[in-house]
């Protein structure tokens, strides 16, 4: 077996030194009746070629976004990832290292985490960011739990424009930790009034910008209302590229930002692994979940990096930790850091402008189709259209024509029958004019 270096001769010599006749005798603490008697009903070992053939066959059954005009978003976006990103993250010293618990031999990981934290703080315009969470949805739930700790309150108001997966993950934690959540109805038109829902026990208001339906809102007034009531404003961002074009949450008074960072550096991967971004104000840093890299000096006075404030974390605090999170999303955070480093100020803002301009052009073309209404006045790279019939069926018909035409809102809100004609359409820099022509043409055909 190609991954196992021991030879039979090695094994014999090692057993002799241990002083036992066989490996079986090393398992003598396992109760007799719990030992597996017969081999498991699974195939035996195979070479690289055989394994590759079988997994490639599974891949071939799928319609990847790489070979179809694709307009899918709703929290996961296809962007062009520069070749250098995937090359660098596969360097063995980065790919095959552990969490940097021994800083003297982990300066590489620690420095890029420090750079990652700084990039996240800059684009959100917050003071400080952690070294990543699992994804945007879990980061949002952690943000709510952190707001509960900071305010010592137990009720969160979740905007009707918050991605339903994010709402549901938060609801799961609410159920088991025993805090309350208020969930107003889906905010299809971006008009909800959340300030009116804040009460004395409200720890935070969670609002997504742009919303799951694509609307962009000025949150400054809402921030003021939160702060006047002693609550925090949590701003969620599911498309991080938008921060290259929009007023950042920190400039609108956000106390915590929870975001999905997949768009920068990471492939769609059918939903994971992704990378949660988490940023807050300096004054709340000791209540923040997750790992943090910090600057320090070594014994010779040279600048270096360590994991710090770990007294918040489970391996030190056990049941009193701020979160149970341990492994986070290090390599995805690295991909984010590298891609963001390549983009820089000029590239990141241009990428955002390109996404927005493409979306504006497609929105205008779709709005011109008979029976199709673009709901949004404002949007970044994703908007909601109302179709003359159920969107799910339209999306299936488009898929038969080799086009991935968007995410039907019914996939996210299966219980809201009146939302069934709505379709979320996302456009990125990867969508060519030919892609847009294909979608517009096919949609016209399908809707006839």
């Amino acid at each position: 077996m190609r991954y196992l270096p021991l030879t039979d001769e090695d094994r014999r010599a090692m057993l002799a030194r241990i002083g036992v006749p066989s490996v079986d005798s090393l398992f003598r603490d396992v109760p007799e009746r719990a030992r597996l008697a017969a081999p498991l009903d699974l195939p035996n070992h195979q070479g690289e070629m055989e394994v590759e053939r079988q997994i490639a066959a599974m891949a071939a059954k799928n319609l990847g976004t790489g070979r179809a005009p694709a307009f899918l978003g709703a929290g996961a976006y296809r962007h062009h990832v520069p070749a250098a990103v995937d090359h660098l993250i596969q360097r063995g010293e980065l790919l095959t290292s552990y969490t940097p618990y021994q800083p003297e031999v982990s300066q590489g990981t620690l420095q890029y985490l420090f750079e990652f934290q700084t990039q996240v703080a800059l684009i959100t315009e917050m003071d400080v960011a952690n070294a990543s969470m699992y994804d945007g949805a879990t980061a949002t739930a952690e943000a709510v739990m952190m707001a509960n700790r900071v305010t010592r309150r137990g009720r969160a108001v979740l905007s009707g424009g918050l991605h339903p997966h994010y709402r549901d993950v938060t609801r799961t934690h609410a159920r088991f930790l025993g805090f309350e959540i208020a969930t107003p109805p889906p905010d299809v038109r971006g008009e909800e009034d959340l300030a009116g829902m804040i009460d004395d026990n409200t720890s935070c208001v969670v609002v997504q910008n742009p919303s799951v339906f694509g609307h962009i809102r000025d949150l400054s007034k809402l921030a003021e209302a939160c702060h006047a009531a002693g609550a925090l404003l949590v701003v969620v961002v599911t498309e991080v590229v938008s921060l290259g074009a929009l007023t950042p949450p920190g400039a609108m008074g956000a106390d915590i930002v929870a975001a999905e960072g997949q768009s920068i550096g990471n492939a769609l991967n059918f939903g994971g692994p992704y990378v949660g971004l988490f940023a807050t104000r300096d004054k709340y840093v000791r209540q923040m979940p997750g790992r943090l890299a910090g600057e320090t000096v070594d014994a010779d006075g040279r600048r270096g990096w360590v994991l710090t404030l770990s007294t918040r974390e489970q391996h030190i605090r056990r049941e009193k930790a701020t979160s149970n999170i341990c492994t986070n999303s290090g390599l995805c955070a690295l991909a984010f850091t590298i891609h963001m480093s390549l983009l820089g100020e000029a590239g990141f803002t241009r990428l955002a402008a390109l996404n927005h301009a493409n979306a504006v052009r497609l929105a205008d073309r779709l709005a011109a189709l008979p029976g199709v209404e673009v709901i949004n006045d404002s949007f970044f790279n994703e908007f909601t259209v109302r179709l003359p019939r159920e969107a799910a069926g339209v999306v299936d018909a488009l898929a038969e024509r080799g086009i991935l035409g968007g995410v039907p809102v019914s996939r996210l809100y299966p219980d809201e029958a009146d939302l069934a004609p709505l379709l979320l359409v996302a456009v990125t820099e990867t969508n060519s004019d030919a892609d847009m022509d294909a979608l517009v043409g096919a949609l016209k055909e399908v809707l006839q």
Partner: protein
Amino acid sequence: MNTDPITGTFSGNRGLQIEEPLIFEQDRPGRTGVDLPEPPDVQDRLGGLKRQGPIGLPGLSEPQVVRHFTRLSQKNYAIDMGLYPLGSCTMKHNPRLNEKLARLPGLADLHPLQPMSTVQGALELIDALAHWLKTLTGMPAVAMSPAAGAHGELCGVMAIRAALEDRGESRKRILVPESAHGTNPATAAACGYTVDPIPANERGRVDLAVFKEKLGDDVAGIMLTNPNTCGLFENDVLEIAEAIHAVGGYFYADGANFNAIVGRVRPGDLGVDCMHINLHKTFSTPHGGGGPGSGPVVLSEALAPYAPLPYVVHGPDGFRLVERDDDPAATGKAFGRLKGFHGQMGMFIRALAYMMSHGADGLRQASSDAVLNANYLLASLKDDLSPAFEGPCMHEVLFDDDFLKDTGVSTLDFAKAMIDEGFHPMTMYFPLVVHGALLMEPTETESKESLDGFIEVLKGLARRAKAKDTAFFHGAPRLTPRRRLDETTAARKPVLRWRPPESQEQAAE
């Protein structure tokens, strides 16, 4: 110039160890590492919220970025470089085939919300991995969505609580051995339980008598790692399972150490109700400097109905995801959703490729070799270091710091000296049940020659410590890009991001 205080090089570099500033310190406005087309001219629809003012991101070209991250990589230790014996972390070889397959078009470029008719192969792959996991563990169901081990723990304990609530019971306590990973008590607390610790006995196992005394009808369950973090198989496990079931509680197994028993023992045969599996440990998906992981949770018949959404089912129309609890194929009892989308697909592909490569025979050989390697370390080091417990051990071996007594050398000092010898240290000061713990897990992917080299070094260091060459240890490491770092100041005055020099001055004023 940043002259090296040790070697006196003008650059601060030491041959292949090259100093590297932060990306923010290499900024030149106007530089970029990507060439994007000019955006088409449109009237913006940003609702009056167009960004004002610069972000502050640095501009670098591609060659600078490639060099930057290459230099950073060279400051890391990695399993690709050498023995990485972190106990309970399972640093084994990461096969490159798995990396290749996870990047295949048709897998890496799938959007999670595509029509299910366009992702049949992806759903088939998840189902295939689920089949392997269920067969290897002897459990009837598996929840695939948890993102890491600790996330899997949440999933399992939430399923336990949902099952208890469904029975109309609100139990309050979870029993957790003192040797458990910190995530176990943190998880129990995150699910609203109080943690009741169980001490270890003199043999490093759960103290069965104390455990039984703590049982009662307010106990929701026990979280037990088996093999435990002392590297020992809990030989009373069947009795523990029976006793917890007898009071109506559930048996949560922490599967962090499943790699010791794959193909030899099925957790389902031990009375387990749920167990998370760290795909990044047992099934070798790369640790990536701290994730991403993946933590599927196998479930017994009793807990399966409470599994979180979504999950894959197979029907007459092929595979599909159940995403709502009123789906005809759903149980109506799912405890909720744990994560955006469906799970760590990129990790699923790698883990499945690993399992298919090893096969049933290879997986059993892998766990056998892992246990053999750990026992070889124990046998070879027992006279020079101080084993915490009598063997045989399982996949990892625990020493305490008794061999360092009166030497002035601590476990930490010993670990730092190992770094200069070219090894990553073992896990230190964990588990908490022995003094100054040194927990070593060699894994099955180390050759005998590699272990022999490691053993010679540890014996040499133990001799040096016993000879009271204390200064040598206190000064270690000397040969690393940085020597011991001041963690106290880092925590007292946290600097968690870079700021431009002028704002640093402002902050100081």
